[in-house]
């Protein structure tokens, strides 16, 4: 019993510690944004890595989720004679929830893990110490370009995932399940509003923020050795997933209050 209480206490302590580290990292990044000039070549490199190289993953994820969601919705709506309502349901679901959340999960898996692994490896091979010894502040050189690249790329990736989901949903519903295309588009345009898209993009922005802060924190704070790198990578993905999903719950209510449906 006492051991269980100790373990729980240690877990809570680690969570609080991580929260504190993330807040300090965020403040340090903001300070660096004002203190140092932005390193544009590194920023472009990171946009290519985070945004450019994530395009196939995001297109496939968004497209297939939209297609499956359209098919499932049509199967249920058909018996109610509401097949023409598939379009707006798919579009709104993709905009408000599926696009940003699934895109965030894919980016956490692809980018968050890579960042944690790269930074942890740099730490254990003394590359971060080498940077410091060469009079370069690691947050400014390593973290700020990644942070900005993520905040720029994430809303674009979410937008693309939404677009692919809606497009694939249309294709499946109209061409595979014989939903009338005209009604599908008409209803989609009629019931999907700008604010639905904005909600998705805003969520994407904040999910990007979570992924980059968690990934970088795990990398910078990793333990020594190969085990430390592995653990940092795993924790970056798992913690990002959990925080994104919990944050999504609160964002849903908050954004719905700000931009009521």
């Amino acid at each position, binding site marked *: 019993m006492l051991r269980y209480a100790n373990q729980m206490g240690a877990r809570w302590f680690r969570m609080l510690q991580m929260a504190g580290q993330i807040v300090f990292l965020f403040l340090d990044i903001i300070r660096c944004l004002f203190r140092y000039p932005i390193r544009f070549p590194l920023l472009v490199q990171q946009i290519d890595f985070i945004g450019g190289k994530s395009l196939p993953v995001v297109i496939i994820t968004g497209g297939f989720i939209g297609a499956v969601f359209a098919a499932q919705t049509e199967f249920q709506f058909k018996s109610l004679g509401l097949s023409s309502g598939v379009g707006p349901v798919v579009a709104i679901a993709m905009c408000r929830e599926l696009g940003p959340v699934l895109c965030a999960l894919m980016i956490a898996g692809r980018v968050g893990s890579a960042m944690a692994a790269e930074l942890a490896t*740099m730490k254990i091979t*003394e590359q971060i110490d*080498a940077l*410091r*010894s060469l009079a*370069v*502040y690691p947050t400014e050189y390593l973290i700020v370009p990644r942070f900005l690249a993520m905040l720029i790329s994430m809303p674009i990736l979410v937008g693309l995932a939404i677009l692919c989901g809606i497009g694939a949903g249309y294709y499946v519903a109209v061409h595979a399940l014989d939903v009338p295309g005209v009604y599908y588009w008409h209803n989609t345009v009629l019931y999907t509003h700008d604010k639905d898209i904005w909600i998705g993009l805003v969520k994407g922005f904040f999910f990007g923020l979570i992924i980059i802060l968690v990934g970088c924190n795990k990398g910078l704070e990793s333990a020594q050795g190969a085990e430390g790198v592995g653990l940092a990578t795993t924790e970056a993905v798992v913690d990002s997933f959990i925080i994104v999903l919990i944050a999504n719950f609160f964002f849903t209510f908050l954004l719905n209050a700000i931009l009521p449906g």
Partner: protein
Amino acid sequence: MSTPDSASAHAAHGAPLLRIVDVQKKLGRYKVLRGVNLEINQGERMVIIGRSGGGKSVLLKHIIGLMRPDAGQVWFRDQDLARLSEEQLVPLRKETGMLFQNGALFDSLSVGENVAFPLREKGLKDEALIRAEVARALKIVDLPGQESKWPSELSGGMRKRVALARAAIAKPALMLYDEPTSGLDPVVADSINKLMVRLGKELEMTSIIVTHDMVSAKEVGDRIAFLYEGQIYCVDKPEVVLSSTDPIVHRFVNGISDATDIVF
């Protein structure tokens, strides 16, 4: 043989560039440094010897501000590094260079970009000049024409030499070497030793070399400091330390173990 307190009496060089005063550091439960006192003079090549895990690298990291002491001071000229923030250390670090034990080359940069890194960070914009400086630095470390290679394509010795070129290219006032000859064959080790002496003389660099390679210590050092159980046990000229009759020093420099060293 000199104790740390009388070490400055042996100074054959200028005024102290660096003063380490009663530095203490605990890592986990283990007290690695237990009150280190050492003065290093301008233009001097100071070799720090000591057992593996004895705190030599930790001491070196205190000297460049990568670690902060739990107690004590590290004076570089007239500034106590222990009291400076990470950003206040930046201008001081521009005057120092460090060769890390495993090179610590940046994996994402080519050899040429690694070596050019300090020049670019200093604000040098003339690419032709940077290329010329990089080529010259690589030639000095006997790796001419290797600019386009990646760190992963290099052997351990080559990585170390590239790292040396990177650390020295900006001509720092103080150069720190963490085990510069470990893992190198005797010929390459000798070339590194000669290079350290040459850089020290030509650029009037102050050098601190952490090693347990006694050949290197003898060839390179103006003085040798022996770090033992977290303190500087003695500081003196190489010939004095290496021929010491003190049982602790004698055993270490001649690599003689006793029964207490073998614990299974």
